[in-house]
């Protein structure tokens, strides 16, 4: 994918380190990895405590988001760069959350931590300070990137595509969750009726970088995605699907929303319709790499935790 818009690369970022209008945010599955070393000037956001409401299962409210923006110094003039571990899953969730709250200039570092490390770029263990007296933004929710349960129910069999970005095994209903994520199980396995299976890593290379645009479009089409129709993405808790949302919405310009309730909501509620098996996946999209627990992504590998 070409860089310079919402997707930036290490050269772009390294050339701008120290820019006072640049806010760099690292969001990891394991936030302590930040302490091993991070991009100089980056703040660490904890997705468990800062990107969710601490009590209700919901996003942080506007007051909490205002506090977060003040902590890291996001002003109206800021360019906010996000990156993280595990091929940017949680960084994409943060990107989506900030977009939901109307933050305008957002960028994602292609490949995240692993790309920065692989390129041998500088690291720091110092935590940045925000200069006092900054007039930080007051976020307001409602930019149309979030899908709620009712939106998904209305989309079944309709004009809006439902894209299940979990592994093929999760989609088929063979597993509730994956090894290493026992806390993310639902009450029932399977998928939302009429959803098609488009594993998130269809969009990336082995190193977690987003594929070149032509190849990206080709792979999405191969998996049955209509690039001219609006879409709702979901996974287990909404972070993998935030990655696919980023690709569709921010890079390819689709009208896409992320259903952050995802399968842990749908698969746990009483009376919800559930489909199992290969479902609506187009036969033409069959891919040997999808036969196992793996993702069927670009690398045709079956990682244990994706």
């Amino acid at each position, binding site marked *: 994918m070409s860089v310079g818009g919402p997707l930036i690369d290490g050269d772009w970022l390294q050339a701008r380190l120290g820019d006072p209008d640049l806010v760099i945010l690292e969001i990891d599955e394991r936030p302590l990895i930040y302490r091993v070393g991070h991009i100089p000037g980056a703040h660490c956001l904890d997705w468990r405590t800062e990107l969710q409401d601490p009590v209700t299962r919901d996003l942080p409210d506007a007051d909490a988001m205002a506090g977060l923006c003040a902590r890291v110094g996001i002003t109206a003039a800021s360019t906010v760069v996000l990156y993280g571990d*595990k091929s940017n899953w949680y960084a994409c969730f943060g990107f989506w959350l900030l977009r939901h709250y109307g933050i305008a200039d957002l960028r994602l570092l292609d490949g995240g931590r692993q790309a920065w*490390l692989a390129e041998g770029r500088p690291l720091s263990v110092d935590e940045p300070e925000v200069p006092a007296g900054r007039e930080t933004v007051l976020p307001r929710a409602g930019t149309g990137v979030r899908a709620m349960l009712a939106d998904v129910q209305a989309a079944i069999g309709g004009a809006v595509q439902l894209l299940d970005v979990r592994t093929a095994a999760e989609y088929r209903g063979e597993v509730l969750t994956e090894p290493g994520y026992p806390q993310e199980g639902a009450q029932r396995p399977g998928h939302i009726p009429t959803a098609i299976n488009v594993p998130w890593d269809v969009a990336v290379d082995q190193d977690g970088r987003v594929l070149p645009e032509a190849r990206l479009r080709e792979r999405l089409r191969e998996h049955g995605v209509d690039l001219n129709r609006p879409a709702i993405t979901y996974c287990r808790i909404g972070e993998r699907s935030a990655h696919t949302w980023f690709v569709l919405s921010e890079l390819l310009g689709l009208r896409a929303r992320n259903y952050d309730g995802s399968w842990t909501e749908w698969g746990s509620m009483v009376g919800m319709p559930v489909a199992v098996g290969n479902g609506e996946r187009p036969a033409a999209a069959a891919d040997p790499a999808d036969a196992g627990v793996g993702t069927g992504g670009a*690398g045709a590998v079956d990682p*244990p935790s994706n």
Partner: protein
Amino acid sequence: MAPNPADTLQADPAQTLASVRAELAKVRASVARIERDLGLLEATQRGAGGTGRERPDRYLQVLVDVYDRGGRHGLDPDGFAAVGERHGYDRRGLGGFFTGGRAPLRRDHERILLTPYGEQLVDLYLQRLAP
């Protein structure tokens, strides 16, 4: 006595398949949870000076690097060898990471990935860095 799945299958194949899948999924989730709890117990035992084998820092740092540099798809063999070398391991000496019932790493389609137990060891190492 539980009904014979084959008999039920003839009565209502779709419902039976869904039911068996649901049961299997729950068993797998339970196994994953037990694996995780067992890993934590073993790790706690080691931390308390129990009989478990102490892991040297460089061993744990290899695992952290696999986690950090491998992303979702893991490292390729050359990348793993480079990680090992960075921490003082000869390429031939890296096989020990894959052996034993509690191996922290596994190979899958030529990619090197953490096992759930390996992830527990990474968490233990990272917890030392907490403020």
